[in-house]
């Protein structure tokens, strides 16, 4: 079941959902809450067009974080100038808001884009939208401009929405029954 705005707000009050800073009242729709863009981006620095790089995820020494560090650079958006996301450009971005879903809250969430941005071609995740129970942190977004024109990104703009769903039961790692009272040695 998808939580309504009222249930999301009750979850926030009961600390079953943590969003910091708390969303403003106009960030809600009937069944979602908007999150905003953090100023820090990660940009891919793929070099000159005549230098061809290939990423091999099957290589025995493949390390995604090392690869990203080698292929990217950090960029902080200037609030006044903004950042122009070019057509076909992929960047990594984060929500300004810290999100936490406690293990025993019986909730998970999905990150979805904003239709107002999607209609201009902007997607905010690539096939990995689930925020699992136990997640904590600022949500990492894979932002791509599939459209024909550059799209201006500014810190604090509404960039994505979270849809909360009630899980059927408590995940195994949030259920203390089996291991209650046991201590690891």
């Amino acid at each position: 079941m998808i939580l309504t705005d009222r249930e999301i707000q009750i979850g926030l009050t009961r600390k079953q959902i943590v969003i910091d800073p708390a969303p403003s009242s106009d960030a809600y729709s009937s069944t979602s809450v908007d999150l905003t863009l953090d100023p820090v981006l990660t940009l891919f620095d793929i070099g000159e067009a005549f230098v061809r790089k290939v990423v091999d995820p099957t290589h025995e020494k493949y390390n995604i974080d090392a690869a990203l560090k080698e292929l990217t650079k950090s960029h902080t958006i200037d609030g006044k100038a903004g950042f122009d996301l070019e057509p076909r450009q992929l960047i990594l971005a984060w929500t300004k808001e810290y999100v936490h879903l406690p293990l025993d809250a019986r909730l998970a969430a999905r990150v979805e884009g904003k239709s107002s941005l999607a209609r201009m071609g902007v997607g905010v995740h690539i096939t990995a939208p689930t925020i699992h129970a136990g997640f904590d942190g600022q949500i990492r977004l894979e932002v791509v401009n599939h459209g024909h024109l550059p799209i201006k990104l500014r810190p604090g703009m509404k960039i994505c929405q979270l849809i909360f769903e009630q899980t059927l039961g408590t995940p195994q790692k949030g259920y203390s029954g089996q291991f209650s009272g046991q201590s690891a040695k």
Partner: protein
Amino acid sequence: MMRLKVEKVAEGLHPSEVIVAIRTSTGSERVVVSARSIQSDSIPVGWPLGTREQTTLVELPRETESGAWRIWVPSDQLLEIEERMRA
């Protein structure tokens, strides 16, 4: 609830993130976690999912670099903490 010992090995791509190494039963895994989740060089992993000899199966808060969510760790890498369950 349990916490799993970790070793910070690098900064993440965002200031809110760090990359940590986790000792597993077969070697080590690296995972990006929220800096806020690290306390006393450990991260929360909930309750164990199983035990086998001197190892314990746990689920990490995020997917590791190799794509794993659940990993077997030496049981001495876990610390138990008290956390009151919500009603």
